[in-house]
């Protein structure tokens, strides 16, 4: 940089990504080549050195997360990882990423909170820019939270008629067809007063096509009680006035993401490498094992 300054050129203050992480308050301007390398950084480190380099204050905090959503995700974290952040081996599913989106704020007013009787209409817009091309959808859920008036472990029955289509910010008519679904759902409201409505097959076409803005509209009717037990459902339940969040369970296929099946394979290889004693089944279990 000094040489550049001496030669009168504008000194492009640059640092290799690693140094940038070291000098967290140095604005990170990289020459073209390094920028390409920088783009290869694992997403977490990229975010670390981005945010760290510009400093949280100067960049100004991003949008603040919804407090209920934050509470739900903290609970999910405790279920999936230890206090030190080690993923729990008990997790059987293959997703290594869970993203929670709340309806975008500028359209919250559009969330028509019309409650005619017990019918609750929704009109929500979700922006999915944060989902990367390497994150493949495994499951998607509309997450309703019920207010405190609902006694914990009540059973709730909801009938939904929803439609989803791509929303084009320019207001153009989007080529993608809308997808609609009608389903009823019975759920035990846990102590967190959450109800997950599985909308995987319903949203799969839009998310698989990497649509960035998805609009979900329709009617939801929730009643307390279990139709399997009592013929008439008790008084209609006013579904929480909070618009539901969208929860995406994804499998991040990038190299930096943790792949359980991969680590299992590593472990098996390590066992085989350390000899037959360590892997009795491998040695005795198969004839070629014995030959080996």
């Amino acid at each position: 940089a000094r040489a550049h300054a001496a030669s009168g050129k504008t000194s492009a203050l640059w640092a290799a990504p690693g140094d940038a992480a070291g000098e967290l308050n140095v604005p990170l301007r990289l020459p073209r080549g390094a920028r390409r390398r920088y783009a290869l950084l694992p997403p977490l480190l990229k975010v670390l050195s981005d945010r760290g380099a510009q400093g949280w204050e100067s960049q100004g905090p991003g949008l603040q997360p919804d407090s209920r959503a934050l509470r739900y995700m903290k609970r999910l974290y405790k279920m999936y990882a230890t206090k030190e952040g080690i993923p729990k081996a008990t997790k059987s599913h293959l997703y290594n990423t869970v993203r929670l989106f709340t309806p975008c704020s500028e359209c919250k007013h559009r969330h028509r909170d019309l409650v005619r009787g017990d019918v609750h209409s929704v009109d929500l817009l979700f922006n999915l820019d944060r989902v990367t091309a390497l994150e493949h959808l495994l499951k998607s859920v509309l997450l309703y939270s019920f207010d405190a008036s609902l006694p914990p472990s009540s059973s709730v029955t909801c009938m939904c008629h929803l439609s989803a289509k791509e929303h084009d910010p320019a207001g153009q008519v989007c080529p993608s067809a809308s997808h609609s679904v009608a389903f009823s759902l019975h759920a035990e409201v846990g102590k967190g007063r959450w109800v997950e409505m599985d909308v995987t097959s319903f949203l799969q076409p839009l998310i698989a096509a990497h649509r960035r803005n998805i609009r979900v509209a329709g009617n939801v009717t929730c009643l307390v009680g279990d139709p399997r037990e009592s013929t008439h459902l008790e008084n209609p339940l006013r579904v929480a006035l909070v618009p539901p969040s969208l929860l995406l369970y994804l499998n991040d296929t990038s190299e930096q993401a943790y792949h359980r099946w991969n680590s299992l394979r590593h472990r098996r290889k390590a066992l085989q490498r350390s000899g037959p004693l360590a892997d009795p089944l491998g040695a005795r279990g198969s004839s070629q094992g014995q030959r080996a």
Partner: protein
Amino acid sequence: PRRRRDGSPSQAPGTPPSNLSEYFKQFLFPQNECELHNFRLSFSQLKWDKWIIAPHRYSPQYCKGDCPRAAGHRYGSPVHTMVQNIIYEKLDPSVPRPACVPAEYSPLSVLTVEPDGSIAYKEYEDMIATKCTCR
């Protein structure tokens, strides 16, 4: 020199090695040999706790120490490591000695707030060193 059955250099019968401690010194491991060291940090120290919500503490660990000459036996190092050590000792000291580096890692689960206000739970590979080796 001819070797006895147990592999130690043969000597004229009856003459003990001149200095036993010197003789065995070549097999001793360095005092500060290559091993895993603890290091814990909290994201609040880095002022990143506003967007990294969990874990609060993170122990990436690190490897430090000198590599013994018999690195193959101790660390499962490839033969190249011994070759590099011989080059350093006998041919060209500007060639670096084998270095003490991580050999295995474990993943880390992170909960972050994204710039758009969404919340992400992600599991990243190779975030905690769990074993060291010489390379």
